[in-house]
């Protein structure tokens, strides 16, 4: 039994090499200066208007997307968990598809469907309705639930399957309407799962840039896009990118920590 703990070694080594070291090197680069250490890049990251705006946009975008995913995913998960086994199995594999698709493929799919000359807008034009702009903030908000709702639902379905139906019925048999049962029993009971699923979505959204880049280029100011432009474009500045990446990771970390604290309240 004692020997079993060594089984973790290969994994730990791998993590150290491919996660720990890059993380360290990002931190190092963000601070390195010819004559020692400098916080100048952090100062820039936290004062330059463009970066502050990007930071703000990223946080708001990730938070709103997470809320949307939680709201939509809850209902999808609840509905799915009550289906017969076969249908449920099929749907759950279907939910895994968007999660594993490349951001570019998804972006292209949305362009075909909702782009300027997409199916929907041609239909809208024919009906004399205003055109839907996919390349706007609302457009982006419409795209991301495509990943996030299934992702969140997948995280929550197992919990709902074990406790959901029983709790709803117990609440109903106690005299609660379906709405009361949801609000007073099911939601609080699911809270740990909701927060865990929300954490996954939030962390993903803070770093998401592939689909955004494909849809709107650099038109939308997000922290992840700022980093990308500093790494891959003519504005190449790796140390500044490293500083921004650290800010992004720290913000995500704080967000996750708050969610974890919140979750602990429900675990007691």
């Amino acid at each position, binding site marked *: 039994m004692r020997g079993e703990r060594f089984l973790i070694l290969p994994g730990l080594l791998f993590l150290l090499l491919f996660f720990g070291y890059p993380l360290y090197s990002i931190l190092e680069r963000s601070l390195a200066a010819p004559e020692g250490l400098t916080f100048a890049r952090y100062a820039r990251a936290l004062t330059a208007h463009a970066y502050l705006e990007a930071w703000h946009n990223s946080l708001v975008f990730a938070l709103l997307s997470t809320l949307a995913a939680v709201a939509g995913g809850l209902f999808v998960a609840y509905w799915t968990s009550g289906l017969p086994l076969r249908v449920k199995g099929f749907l759950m594999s279907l939910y895994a598809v968007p999660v594993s698709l490349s951001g570019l493929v998804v972006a292209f799919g949305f362009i075909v469907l909702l782009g300027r000359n997409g199916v929907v807008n041609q239909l809208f034009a024919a009906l004399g309705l205003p055109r839907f702009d996919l390349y706007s903030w609302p457009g982006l908000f419409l795209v991301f639930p495509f990943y996030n709702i299934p992702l969140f639902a997948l995280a929550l379905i197992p919990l709902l399957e074990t*406790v959901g139906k029983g709790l709803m019925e117990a609440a109903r048999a*106690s005299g609660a309407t*379906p709405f*009361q049962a949801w609000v007073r*029993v099911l939601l*609080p009971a699911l809270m740990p799962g909701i927060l865990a699923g929300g954490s996954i979505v939030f962390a993903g959204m803070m770093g998401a840039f592939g689909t955004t880049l494909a849809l709107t280029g650099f038109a939308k100011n997000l922290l992840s896009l700022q980093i990308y432009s500093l790494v891959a474009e003519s504005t190449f500045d790796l140390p500044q990118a490293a500083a921004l990446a650290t800010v992004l990771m720290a913000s995500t970390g704080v967000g996750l920590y708050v969610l974890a604290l919140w979750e602990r309240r429900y675990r007691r």
Partner: protein
Amino acid sequence: MVDLIGVRKRYGRVVAVDGVSLSVREGEFFTLLGPSGCGKTTTLRLVAGFETPDQGEVRISGQGVNRLPPEGRPIGMVFQNYALFPNMTVFGNVAFPLRLRRLPERVVRRKVGELLEMVHLQGLEGRYPRELSGGQQQRVALARALAREPKVLLLDEPLSALDAKIREELRGELKRLQRETGLTALYVTHDQEEALALSDRIAVMRDGKVEQLGTPQEIYERPSTLFVARFVGIGTLVPGEAREGRFHRDRPWPVQVEGEGRGFILLRPEQLRPHPEGFLEGQVGLATYLGSLLRLEVETEGILLKVDLNPQEEVRAGDRLRLALPEAAPFIKEEA
């Protein structure tokens, strides 16, 4: 108090409840007994309002409730897996139905106190469900079900997730509680011993139909079908023929029966006694000591009879034994 009138429920091609009619009287402890898949739980869920019948009617206190949701029916329910609200304390769980009725907090507190006293859980108000044993959790569930002051208490295999010892203890308490409150109880179980111990009347179910309905004594002593005879209690079904009020195999047996034609008599192990002039002679194949009794399997005339003796009797496997038969035995006609 609860009336089912020709109730049918099907899921796709499976008929779960196939024309069940029965009436539970006020203050009665009524049990639906049967193996898994016999429709007993669906029947209970039809009364609770979690399912709606395809045909027939469910009435509670004379009022048709087919269209009422569970929260609109005068019921309380206890589930097999307790289904306590994990985010609420014991107090919160029991208070839940009361708070839904918007009773003043002072009244809620008093009533929860009374209910917890009733199920012997005083002092545990502040605990969360996961901090309780299975037996304690089910007591909380019971208190919560009673908090709604239901006309009918519905219990879906409430004891089957518990250890044998706790199960028996809680069984006794359940019966006591039901007696004291005078509540009508509709109980579902697959455990025939539990059904016999608790019930005023039992409906034995099979394939969505009521196979036999009667008091525990009637069900045990006079099963009306082979299924009931096999499902309830232990015994031996001896094939033969009923002729002129007596049971016949290759010769007439000194056992009175009612009925005519081919069929089986049911011999319970406690009705068979060793006797020097007993009618049957056989050899003991197996002797099992069970503490309170000694159970034998006696082979005689091509039949394997189960016989219960006093545990002090010194009988061993291989012994020869003469057995006296009961004067009369239930006769069950061969099924077509």
